[in-house]
C-alpha cells in the first residue's frame, strides 16, 4: 500500500492549480456545480484554456485527442477543479458521451463529435429522466418512430441540466413499445436546434436556472444519429451512468467548505471566533475533517481499481453516497456555526461569508438525488456489493 501521489501526479496538480490561479477572478468564491449558469462566459473561457493545455479530455485515448492519462490523474483533475469550485469541466461530453461513443459509436459519429468535445467547442446535455421516469428510468416513454431515414421523436424530458446552453443532447427514447421495458430503448444524438424542440426553464430551490424541461413535438432525428444498435439503448446508455457515478466532486466541495469554515472560525475578527476554543465545536470540526478524508479515500479507491482494469460498481456507489452526505453535513454545520447569520440569503445585508453557506446547503440537497438517488445507490451496495438477496418481486 502507498498513500501518496507520484511526482507526475503532484506536478500535474500544481500546473492545473497555477492555471486556475490565472483563470479565476481574484475574489472567486465559486458557485456550487448547479449554478454554472451564472458564470457561463467564464465557463467557456476555462473550457478553452483546459482544452488548449490538453487537459480537457486527458483521460481519453491519444487517438481521440486525449493523453491516455490514468484514472488517478482524472480524479486529481476533477478534484482540483472541484476544490477551486471552478466552472469549465464538461461532465456530459467528456465524462459520459465521449467514452460511450468510443465504445459504441459509428466511425462517422466519432469523427463528427469527439473532436468537437475535445476542443471544448460543444455543450452536450443528457436527456434521460422524464416526468414519470426518474429512478425507474427503464419506464421512459418518449417515443421515436422510424420514418424513412429519420426518427420522429415525441415526448418530454425533464431535469435536463444545461439544456438551455446545450448544442446537442444524447437521449434515451422508446423505439419498441411492445418489448420488455429494457429491450425497447435506443440512444439518439439530437441537435438542439432541430425544429419541434422546446426548452422550458425550471428554477431550482436555490433560485438558479440550471435544469429544464425539454419538449419534443415531431422532432426529426436522422437515423445516422442512433448510437449502437436499435433497441440496445439501455446497455449503451447505462455505460454513461457508470462514468457518472462518483463522489469526488462532493467530497472535495466538502473539503473546500470545511477549510473556509475553519478559516472563518480561526479569524479573530469573525463574529463567531469565540467558539474556536469550544471543545464541542473543535470536536465536531475534527470529525467532519475525518469523514471528508474518508470520502476522499473512497474516491481514490475507485480510481485505483479502475487503474487495475476493474469496473468498480458498488465502490462507485459507496463513494457517491459518502461524498454527497458529507458535503451536506459540512454545510449544515457551517450554517449552524454561523448562528443567526447562517439564515441570511446571499445578497442580504449583514450576511457573513456572502451567504454562501446557505446557498451551498440548498444546492447540496440535489447531490443525494441526482445521478441515481442514494437509496438506489444503497440498493446497489447491498445487492451487488454485499450480495444480499433482492426483495422478491410481487
Amino acid at each position, binding site marked *: 500500500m502507498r498513500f501518496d501521489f507520484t511526482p507526475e501526479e503532484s506536478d500535474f496538480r500544481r500546473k492545473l492549480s497555477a492555471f486556475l490561479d490565472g483563470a479565476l477572478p481574484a475574489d472567486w468564491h465559486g458557485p456550487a456545480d448547479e449554478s454554472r449558469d451564472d458564470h457561463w462566459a467564464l465557463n467557456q473561457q476555462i473550457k478553452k484554456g483546459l482544452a488548449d493545455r490538453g487537459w480537457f479530455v486527458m483521460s481519453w485515448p491519444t487517438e481521440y485527442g486525449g493523453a491516455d492519462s490514468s484514472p488517478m490523474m482524472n480524479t486529481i483533475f476533477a478534484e482540483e477543479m472541484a476544490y477551486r469550485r471552478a466552472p469549465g469541466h464538461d461532465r456530459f461530453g467528456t465524462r459520459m458521451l465521449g467514452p460511450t461513443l468510443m465504445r459504441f459509436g459509428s466511425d462517422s459519429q466519432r469523427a463528427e463529435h469527439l473532436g468537437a468535445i475535445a476542443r471544448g467547442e460543444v455543450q452536450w446535455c443528457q436527456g434521460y*429522466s422524464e416526468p*414519470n*421516469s*426518474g*429512478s*425507474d428510468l427503464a*419506464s421512459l416513454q418518449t417515443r421515436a418512430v422510424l420514418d424513412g431515414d429519420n426518427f420522429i421523436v415525441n415526448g418530454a424530458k*425533464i*431535469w435536463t441540466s444545461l439544456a438551455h446552453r446545450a448544442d446537442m443532447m444524447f437521449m434515451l427514447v422508446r423505439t419498441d413499445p411492445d418489448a420488455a421495458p429494457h429491450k425497447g430503448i435506443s440512444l439518439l444524438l439530437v441537435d438542439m436546434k432541430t425544429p419541434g424542440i422546446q426548452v422550458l426553464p*425550471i*428554477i*431550482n*430551490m436555490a*433560485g438558479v436556472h440550471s*435544469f429544464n424541461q425539454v419538449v419534443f413535438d415531431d422532432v426529426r432525428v436522422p437515423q445516422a444519429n442512433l448510437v449502437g444498435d436499435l433497441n440496445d439503448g439501455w446497455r449503451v446508455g447505462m455505460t454513461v451512468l457508470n462514468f457518472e457515478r462518483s463522489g469526488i466532486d462532493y467530497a472535495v466541495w466538502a473539503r473546500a467548505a470545511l477549510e473556509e469554515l475553519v478559516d472563518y472560525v480561526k479569524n479573530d475578527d469573525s*463574529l463567531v471566533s469565540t467558539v474556536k476554543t469550544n471543545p*464541542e465545536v473543535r470536536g465536531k470540526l475534527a470529525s467532519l475533517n475525518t469523514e471528508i478524508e474518508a470520502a476522499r479515500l473512497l474516491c481514490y479507491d475507485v480510481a485505483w481499481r479502475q487503474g487495475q482494469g476493474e469496473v468498480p460498481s458498488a465502490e462507485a456507489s459507496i463513494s457517491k453516497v459518502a461524498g454527497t452526505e458529507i458535503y*451536506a453535513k459540512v454545510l*449544515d454545520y457551517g*450554517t*449552524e456555526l454561523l*448562528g*443567526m*447569520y*447562517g*439564515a*441570511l*440569503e446571499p*445578497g*442580504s*445585508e*449583514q*450576511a457573513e461569508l456572502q*451567504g454562501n453557506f*446557505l446557498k451551498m*446547503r*440548498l444546492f447540496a*440537497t*440535489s447531490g*443525494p*438525488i*441526482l445521478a441515481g*438517488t*442514494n*437509496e438506489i445507490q*444503497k*440498493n446497489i451496495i447491498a445487492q451487488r456489493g454485499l450480495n444480499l438477496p433482492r426483495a422478491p418481486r410481487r
Partner: protein
Amino acid sequence: MDFGLTQTQKLIRTSAREFLADRSGPATVRAVADGDTEVAANLWMDVVELGWPALTVSEQHGGAGLSFSDLAVLLEELGATLAPVPIAESAITARILERFGQDALKAELLPQIADGDVLITPAIVGRDASWDAHNTGTVANRTGSGLVITGEARFVSFANQATHALTLVNTDDDQFAMVVVPIWKSPGVEQIPLNHASGTPVYSLTFNEVEAPTSNIVATGTEAVAAAAELVATGSVARATQLAGLARAVVDSTVEYTAGRQQFGRPVGSFQAVQHHLAEMAIAAKQVNHLAHAAAWSFSQDGYSVDRAARAKIAASEKIADLCWTAHQCHGAIGFTWEHNLHLYTRRALAWKTDFGDAAFHKAILASAMGL
C-alpha cells in the same frame, strides 16, 4: 396526563385551520417571503380582527386570558401553514410585560396589544447574535425623563410592522434595563431589511439616541436580566411549537407525495427505504410536538419550567431541519424546484434552528438545570 385538546383548544384549532387555509396559502407565504410588506400588513389586520393578539392577554387588561398552552395550539397551526404573522412575537412580549411590568405600563400597553394597536417585538440580540441575556447591542444614558438609547439590535422579526421593540439595554450606571422602545416612524431608528431564510420580515435596527420615557422601563438590574432570559425561553418554546406544526405539515405532504408517486410500477412510498425515512420523520415530529406542548403547558402565572423549555428548543433545533432534508430526499428532483413549496418549509426550519437560541445554547441551560 391528557394528550387531548380542551373544548377551547379544539375551537382554536378549527378556526385557525379554516382561516389559514383560506388566507395564508402558499401565494401569501411566497409574497411575504419576497418582501411584499403590504400582503403581510393585510394579513395582520385580518388576524387582529379575529382577536388572536388578545388570546393570552389577561382579562383584567382586556384580553381573553387564555393559557400559553392554548396559544401553543394556534402557534402549531401557524407553523404548519408558515403563516407570516407576528402572533408569537406579540404574545411573548405581552407575557413578559404581564410578568415583569409596572401596573401603569401594563394598564397602558396591554389593552392596546389585545386590540392590535400596539405590537411589540423582541429586539435583544446584538451584532454578536448571542441570545445570552447579558449580551446586548444597545447602551442607554439615563436622563431626568427616561433613557436615551444608542446601538443596534439585529434579527428583529416584523420590525416593520411593530410599534415598539422590547429591548435590553446596558445603562451608564453599569446596570441593565429592559425597556419598551417606540420604533414606529421613530426618528432615531433605522431599519435595515435582511433577506432571511425564514421568509418572514426580519430587520436589523440601529438606535441613534432614541428616547424612551421612564414609564416604559419594564425592569432593571438582575430583574431585567431575568426578564430577558425568560423572554428568550418563551420565544424558544413558541418557535419550537411552530416548528412542530411545520414538521407535521411536512410529514403529511411527504406521505401524500410518496404514496402517489409511482416508480417501478408501485408507489415509491412502498419501498422500505422511503418508509423508514418517513417513519423517522414521524418519530421526530411527534417528539418535538410533545416536548413543545409540554413546555408550553408549563408556562403559568408564576413562571415556567426551565428544563422543559430548553428541551423543546434543543429537540426542535436538532431535528426539524433534518426532517425537511429527508423530505427532500423522499421527493426526488421535484422537491428541488423553486416552484415546489417544500423549500419554503426547509428554509424556515433552517432559519429557526438558531432563533431564540440554538441547540448548543439551550443545552447549556439544560445542563445547569440538571445540576451540572
